[in-house]
């Protein structure tokens, strides 16, 4: 029954989306208020019906209704409750349904928070959103229906990929999707602006909070995924430049660029058509990423199914959405009022530099991800574009960006003075140089990159503090500095914290890559070994039975000198449905770094192969990502940037026609 309710609701979403995509647009052209108002109503209907469909599928998973083939293929009665729920989106069909649910959720939020948006503009935004929903729901109903029945129903399901049965990964897809799909709002705003033929600073004020919200989720989603990879997938690796990781990283880069260029539009009425283009590109990356993964063109753990029918639909959908919006851009953008001017040395041009580097990096990640396909198609054999290439690109493109990032916030709008800004960050430069040089001296050979990375991190961190110090005039009049500190707006704190977060991430990457201490050895009970000043003693193994797996658990006692630190209990699990072997690393975070133990296989004679690590400052990666998210949220909570319609400054009169 639940299956039919879900199926029926999904068809309703399709119908409401069709109405919502067409009629409000006609209304906007003809100036028919009633047709335009339909946009809001259809948005609510789509959301409620999508919610019903999602609830129906969730119910089918909860009660293990194996007559629904999607449940039979992806669930199992013995699975813990959390993974029965996360199993809903742990497969191709369900994850698309989640995508649609979030898409309609955002449309509803725009309708609700944007009640003060001019009706015509809102109608156009929502109709673009409905068009996207229409495309996705057609895709689901035609090629990937999660509500199809299975007759006769099997007694037991196939179970979920054990790698996905993990708390980190249960929340990773929804978080990431909130980010991906959140960018659809910026996209819809961009298309609506092109249709209206006008981009105003006010437009940027509407777009920025939505982009920021999407960006915060995207950051969180990527960080969760990377954290999961760190403790589950490999042996302490946290980023593999896997096509799927790249698929989430490209929209993130584009969204980051968009956040910054929207500031220029808002403050200076410049870079308008570029910002619109960026909004289109950012969401196109989201679509491309999702579909590259789903179509199975790129092999990956995340590719749930390879199906030519789906591939064709996907290509057509991409061509229509991306091609269509680019064509619209090419046609309408040149007709927009030209932008404001600014000098070469100014906050604007610093933000342009930011945009150039971030977009270039996004483009290069795209090239690197797709390059093996091109080479193979050209008949030159198969190649792998692995981490070494992307690390090279990151070093070439991101280091200048970080250097510029230190200076940018210090420059004045319109016409800044580089010498003045340099004066403020000069100490940062000196500190960074010393930090780098000190490292070169303390080590020997092959540490140039480490020194460089450390230098960049210190440079950025110091520059952020220098910026705050100059803002509160800490050195000129320290007496009133504290008072001024309290006057710093949340948006400014947000910026500083997010930028510092980046510095912390660079620090974590550099230090953990360079100074990881590892031992790879065969141990018998009673053996002990030293890893980075910690004594790991192997106390033996014991069998463990979980709800749907059996495992071998290793026992390690870790001590520093004579002081007991912790016991580490890594597991080597074998899941029963489907049969699969996973390693569960045991991690104990210390302030200075993580103690990390993995138990491998039996080496005969009660000896076991084990991997023991000390990963210094690895937590800085997640801490830095968290700082970025906090920065984004702080900025979002700033009065001027709340979701919805921030009131315009007086001089930007809100025209009824907008």
């Amino acid at each position, binding site marked *: 029954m639940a299956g039919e309710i879900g199926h029926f609701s999904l068809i309703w979403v399709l119908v409401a989306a069709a109405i919502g995509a067409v009629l409000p647009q006609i209304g906007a052209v003809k100036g028919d208020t009633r047709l335009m108002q339909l946009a809001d109503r259809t948005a609510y209907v789509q959301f409620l019906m999508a919610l019903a469909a999602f609830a129906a599928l969730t119910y089918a998973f909860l009660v293990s209704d194996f007559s629904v083939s999607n449940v039979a293929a992806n669930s199992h009665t013995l699975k813990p409750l959390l993974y029965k729920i996360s199993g809903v989106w742990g497969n191709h069909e369900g994850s698309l349904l989640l995508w649609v649910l979030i898409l309609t959720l955002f449309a509803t939020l725009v309708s609700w928070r944007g009640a003060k948006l001019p009706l015509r503009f809102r109608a156009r935004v929502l109709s673009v959103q409905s068009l996207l929903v229409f495309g996705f729901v057609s895709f689901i109903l035609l090629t990937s229906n999660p509500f199809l029945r299975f007759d006769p129903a099997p007694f037991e399901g196939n179970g979920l990929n054990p790698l996905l049965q993990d708390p980190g990964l249960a929340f990773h897809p929804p978080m990431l999707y909130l980010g991906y799909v959140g960018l659809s709002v910026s996209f819809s705003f961009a298309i609506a602006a092109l249709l209206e033929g006008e981009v105003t600073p006010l437009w940027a004020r509407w777009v920025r909070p939505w982009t920021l919200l999407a960006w915060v989720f995207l950051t969180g989603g990527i960080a969760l995924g990377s954290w999961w990879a760190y403790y589950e997938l490999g042996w302490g690796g946290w980023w593999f430049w896997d096509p799927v990781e790249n698929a989430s990283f490209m929209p993130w880069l584009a969204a980051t660029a968009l956040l910054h260029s929207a500031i220029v539009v808002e403050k200076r009425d410049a870079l308008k058509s570029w910002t619109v283009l960026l909004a289109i590109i950012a969401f196109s990356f989201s679509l491309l990423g999702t579909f590259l993964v789903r179509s199975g063109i790129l092999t990956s753990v995340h590719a749930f199914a390879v199906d030519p029918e789906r591939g064709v639909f996907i290509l057509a959908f991409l061509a229509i959405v991306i091609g269509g919006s680019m064509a619209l851009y090419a046609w309408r953008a040149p007709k927009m009022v030209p932008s404001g001017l600014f000098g070469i040395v100014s906050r604007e041009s610093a933000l342009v530099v930011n945009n150039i580097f971030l977009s270039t*990096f996004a483009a290069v990640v795209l090239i690197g991800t797709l390059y093996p396909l091109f080479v193979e198609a050209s008949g030159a054999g198969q*190649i792998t574009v692995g981490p070494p290439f992307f690390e090279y690109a990151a070093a070439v493109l991101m280091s200048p960006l970080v250097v510029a990032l230190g200076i940018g916030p210090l420059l004045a709008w319109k016409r800044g003075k580089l010498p003045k800004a340099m004066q403020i960050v000069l100490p940062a430069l000196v500190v960074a140089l010393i930090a780098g040089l000190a490292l070169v001296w303390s080590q020997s050979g092959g540490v140039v990159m480490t020194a460089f990375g450390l230098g960049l991190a210190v440079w950025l961190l110091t520059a952020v503090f220098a910026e705050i110090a100059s803002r509160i005039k800490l050195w000129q009049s320290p007496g009133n500095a504290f008072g001024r500190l309290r006057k710093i707006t949340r948006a400014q704190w947000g910026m500083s914290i997010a930028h510092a977060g980046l510095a912390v991430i660079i620090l974590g990457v550099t230090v953990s890559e360079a100074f990881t201490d590892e031992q790879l050895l065969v141990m018998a009970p009673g053996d002990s070994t030293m890893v980075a000043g910690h004594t790991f003693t192997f106390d033996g193994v014991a069998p463990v039975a979980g709800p749907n797996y059996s495992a071998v658990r290793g026992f390690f006692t870790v001590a520093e000198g004579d002081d007991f630190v912790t016991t580490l209990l890594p597991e080597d699990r074998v899941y029963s449905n489907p049969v699969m072997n996973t390693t569960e690393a045991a991690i104990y975070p210390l302030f200075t770094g993580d103690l990390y133990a993995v138990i491998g296989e039996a080496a005969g004679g009660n000896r076991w192969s084990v991997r023991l690590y000390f990963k210094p400052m690895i937590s800085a990666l997640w801490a830095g990502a968290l700082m970025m998210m906090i920065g984004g949220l702080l900025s979002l909570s700033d009065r001027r940037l709340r979701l919805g319609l921030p009131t315009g400054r007086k001089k930007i009169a809100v025209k009824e026609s907008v």
Partner: protein
Amino acid sequence: MIRQFVVVIVTAFLVAGAAFAVAVDEKPLPDPVLEAQARSLMKEIRCLVCQNQSIEDSNADLARDLRAIVRERVALGDTPDNVRAYLVDRYGDWVLLKPPFNPSTYLLWASPLLALVALALLLFRRQQKNETRQAAMAPLSDSEKAELDKLLEGEQ
């Protein structure tokens, strides 16, 4: 009868094979210098059944077998280049995580610089065009217009 016999033989071989696979344990080479060399090589070799993971990073069976091969070659006295050539011979360029620098990858390696220049030119040209257009039109901003209107009204 004959078929059953074949099945038994094959099964016996499979079991023996499996047992042999277990025996390939993760034993580092006794010489720390060679082991370090092997380890750094492992970081460059792709685990063929994983997603951009190196064999150093993966616990897949195939990765383990490749690690054993790398250690074996290094222990036999192969230079890193020899080991790479050995693996490329068997698995193709695909096995190298770092794409080789040859005519088919020139474009790839140059892409960061090319894209950077292209984008910078695009944005720079756009800004210049803007300036000439603005200079030609010399439009008033909304606020200036409002101010002008006010002034004109005031005069009337």
